[in-house]
């Protein structure tokens, strides 16, 4: 029975969102709630001398919370303990919070914030990550003996070097960060409701901040207007702030950032510089790779070690190569901390390897499509960590699909040093491609350590409720869980409800990140549902009557399952050897651009993509993930500039923080490839991040094809293209 998987159930959360009835944190009616805000550093690095209170403000009207008021540890709980909840002696980035204020209304809050002036003695700020020396984390991956290969290359082999850079990117979720916190109730429980991806992360952060057991913190997700990774770790910061204020004020406190504050202080994508040395045989076979990955972590560690890990694990691309050395470092600067963003390091290294492949192809006079296909990982091959791919490898299928759709394999590329392009219309066209994979689920033994749990439980009316910590953030979790549960239970989708993620009422399924919700959490859900279905039996009658009968007979209507890694997966975190991910999604993109020769504006007119998702649980949602992710990648490739001056983000308003609009979107041509993954629900694997990886290299390759200038940095803005063309004119 498989009625819902593969169908189109629509979006149960859609009507409320479209009609404006959905309750976001700013809409939630909370009697007596005060408004909270933060006094922040205005400089990138400095010693905090004192905080002046301007005279004339009646401080009895507000509550003020400082570092000394944190009942537990003044530490933002995450991978490292380096980030304080409130900075005490030193500030390390613009926007770092120093004091918190709550007031009965917004004008009073603003007046109070304006009356508090931090006096900070500036210290030298490190704002160039390429020269920064303080290393936050390092990763090394070694396969074979690349040193020996580079030292004595076989006859005919050629060495290629390339340096590739990507700038930061803003997630720009529609709804800014926000939450409401209540003071501890009679049994000492602190409650927070808000916009977030990972309620159980927030719970952990509150427990640390208050010095309480996790059970004494209850976190409930509200309707969340997008995340893209931006609501993975940061909501913990907002929640700790609001909860500290609620404690001090003895009443609920709401913090909702306005767009300006959100853009200035929240984490963004890690800027990167990736250096490749590649040894290639005359026929294009990759002989050895040496990759150096450098990321700008910003002021604190946040999730940087894991981002670096994923960046490095994708740095050699979806290619076979016997000898690989990958060295990664993430360094500290005085920028706003970098954090989680769709793709999580992989888009940066994917950009580098894909552009490197183009460079190699041109130098060897091989077709970039043929070079990729020749070296593509196939079933039975081993990745850079030595992971042998046993299952669900859609590499050739996606390559062949985009070739069939676009003829990219027959496209003649222009030479990099060709004469200045010209055309009567003033526009030139170009084509570019990329080939990429993305590990689904947590890295290495992450899922083993996490042990994600899901419960399915019968309600008195006979419907089945999915209880999971995974959140709906616009990507379709509710729909996907409904489809999986309905088919695994053998019931109608109307018989399934999905519980609100509330840490007091749902098990910890792990965070809603890493393309793991459908594949990992969904597989646990499917197995729990199958057990429940077996219990209540497949006798006559509709599902609800059978369920009610089972309950009436005293049957246990709750099944909770825990994730268990597929047998045979082995990972050694110390040596970075083994099975880095349970499986991979595979994809290829072809971008077609038109460049205006006067203005160097780049129009991506068509994006063709083929994506192996294992099984599309809801094809329309999968297509939405693919086109949305690809558009985000296209924006990063050419128009999304995030820059800073003296450590202050300059794109601090929607008027200047540019992302593509629907008018900027290309025509999309999406092919969904299904190479089922044995351990995913109905064969599904992750799709959320994959489409973010390949857009930038494909678009920049197409620009290079159109203009004949080397496009080695994201974003390729018209201003940068002009500088490249002028440079070429000067040197030729």
């Amino acid at each position, binding site marked *: 029975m498989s009625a819902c998987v593969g169908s189109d159930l629509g979006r149960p959360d859609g009507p409320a969102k479209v009609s404006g009835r959905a309750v976001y944190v700013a809409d939630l009616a909370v009697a007596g709630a005060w408004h909270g805000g933060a006094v922040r550093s205005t400089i990138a690095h400095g010693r905090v001398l004192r905080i002046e209170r301007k005279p004339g403000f009646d401080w009895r009207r507000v509550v003020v919370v400082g570092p000394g008021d944190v009942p537990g540890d003044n530490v933002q709980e995450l991978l490292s303990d380096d980030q304080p909840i409130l900075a005490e002696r030193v500030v390390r980035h613009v926007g770092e919070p120093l004091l918190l204020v709550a007031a009965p209304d917004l004008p009073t809050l603003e007046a109070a914030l304006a009356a508090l002036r931090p006096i900070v003695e500036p210290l030298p700020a490190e704002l160039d990550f390429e020269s920064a020396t303080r290393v936050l984390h390092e990763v090394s991956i070694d396969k074979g003996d690349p040193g020996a290969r580079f030292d004595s290359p076989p006859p005919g082999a050629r060495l290629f070097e390339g340096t590739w850079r990507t700038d930061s990117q803003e997630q720009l979720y529609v709804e800014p960060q926000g939450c409401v916190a209540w003071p501890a109730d009679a049994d000492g429980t602190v409650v927070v409701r808000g916009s977030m991806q990972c309620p159980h992360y927030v719970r952990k952060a509150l427990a640390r901040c208050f010095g309480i057991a996790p059970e004494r913190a209850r976190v409930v997700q509200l309707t969340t207007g997008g995340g893209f990774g931006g609501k993975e770790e940061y909501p913990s910061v907002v929640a700790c702030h609001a909860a500290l204020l609620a404690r001090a004020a003895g009443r609920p406190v709401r913090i909702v950032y306005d767009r*300006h504050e959100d853009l200035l202080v929240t984490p963004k994508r890690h800027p990167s510089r990736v250096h490749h040395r590649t040894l290639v045989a005359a026929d294009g076979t990759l002989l050895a790779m040496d990759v150096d990955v450098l990321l700008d972590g910003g002021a604190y560690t946040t999730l940087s070690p894991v981002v670096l890990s994923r960046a490095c694990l994708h740095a050699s691309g979806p290619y076979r190569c016997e000898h690989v050395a990958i060295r990664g470092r993430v360094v500290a600067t005085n920028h706003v901390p970098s954090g989680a963003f769709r793709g999580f390091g992989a888009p940066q290294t994917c950009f580098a390897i894909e552009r490197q492949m183009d460079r190699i192809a041109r130098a060897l006079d091989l077709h970039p499509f043929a070079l990729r296909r020749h070296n593509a990982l196939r079933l039975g091959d081993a990745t850079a960590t030595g992971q042998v791919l046993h299952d669900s490898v859609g590499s050739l299928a996606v390559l062949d699909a985009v070739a069939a759709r676009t003829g990219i394999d027959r496209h003649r590329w222009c030479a990099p040093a060709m004469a200045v392009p010209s055309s009567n219309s*003033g526009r030139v066209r170009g084509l570019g491609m990329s080939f990429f994979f993305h590990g689904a689920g947590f890295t290495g033994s992450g899922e083993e350590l996490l042990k994600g749990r899901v419960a399915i439980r019968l309600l008195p009316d006979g419907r089945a409720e999915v209880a999971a910590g995974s959140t709906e953030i616009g990507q379709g979790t509710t729909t996907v869980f409904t489809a999986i549960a309905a088919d695994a239970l053998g019931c109608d989708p109307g018989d399934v409800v999905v519980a609100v993620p509330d840490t007091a009422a749902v098990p910890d399924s792990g965070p809603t990140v890493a393309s793991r919700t459908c594949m990992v959490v969904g597989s646990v859900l499917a197995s729990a549902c199958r057990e429940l279905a077996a219990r209540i039996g497949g006798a006559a009658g509709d599902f609800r009557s059978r369920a009610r009968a089972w309950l009436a007979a005293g049957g246990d209507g709750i099944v909770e399952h825990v994730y268990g890694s597929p047998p045979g997966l082995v990972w050694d975190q110390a040596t970075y050897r083994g099975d880095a991910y349970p499986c991979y999604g595979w994809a290829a993109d072809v971008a077609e651009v038109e460049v205006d*020769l*006067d*203005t*160097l*504006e780049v129009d991506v007119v068509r994006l063709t993509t083929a994506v192996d998702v294992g099984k599309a649980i809801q094809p329309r949602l999968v297509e939405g993930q693919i086109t949305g992710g690809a558009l985000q990648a296209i924006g990063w490739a050419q*128009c999304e500039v995030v*820059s800073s001056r003296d450590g202050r983000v*300059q*794109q601090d*308003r929607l*008027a*200047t923080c*540019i992302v*593509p*609009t629907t*008018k*900027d979107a290309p025509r999309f041509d999406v092919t969904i490839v299904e190479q089922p993954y044995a351990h995913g629900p109905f064969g599904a694997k992750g799709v959320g991040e994959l489409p973010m990886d390949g857009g930038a290299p494909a678009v920049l390759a197409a620009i290079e094809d159109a203009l004949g200038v080397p496009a080695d940095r994201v974003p390729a803005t*018209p*201003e940068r293209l*002009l*500088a490249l063309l002028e440079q070429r004119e000067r040197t030729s």
Partner: protein
Amino acid sequence: MRVISARSLDEALAALRDATAASRVLAGGTDLMVELAAGRTSPDLVVDVGAVPELRGIRPVDDGLWLGAGTTCTELLHSAAVTAHADLLAIAAREVGAAQIQNRATIGGNLGTASPAADLVPVLFALGAQVALRSATGARVLPVEDFVTGYRATARRPDELIEGIVVPPRPARELRAFRKVGTRRAQSIAKLVVALAIAADGGVVTAARIAAGAVADRTVRLTTLERALFEGLPPGGLADAVAASVAADTAPCDDVRSTARYRSTVLARVLVRLLAALPSC
């Protein structure tokens, strides 16, 4: 902050009688509300003219086409009279913000803010428009170039209202063009914007008004280029005339949207392409 919602022109003018330099008129609010939210202005008085009927309407007058200050971009781009007599305005209005902004943004507000990057202002320059100002004590008319006096600065007195704009009749054989280069296809403020109107008779240029935005502290006329079109191009031809004018008449800067280098280079290229397409050049 005092807010007065005027229901007639007289009420609005009366309300503005004791306006100060800090007072503000509110039309569509698409500029003013943003400035208020960002704390960049704190007016003592706001006079809302959004419901003043006398500020609405597009109609032919003796000396051309009258556009009430409250005419929205949406009205501009749907008006048959505008399309017939001042098509550049309709073309430019379509590139302001996106539909929601176009529904509120007024021509009076575009002029009132006088942003160097405004899209409608260069068009008004190119069309040789006149700005009609009125106060409780009188009325006056200024050429639009005299109205814009500096960076977001105008000749309007605090007690005056922009009542409307007069676009002179379209001469025979006038060639017109508009080009905006933004950061994306919609909801984008100009990196540079060009509007031009050139009248020619038998291959001889008889009138030329070429204006550009976002390349100086205010909207500018490219007078050096205009002169060259009248008096004959320099030996290097059109490209040299354009280059000389960009150097003499503009002063672009680096900012969050673009670079000075890009602005001057691309302005020159856009001008050459637009002018090369004009048969008279």
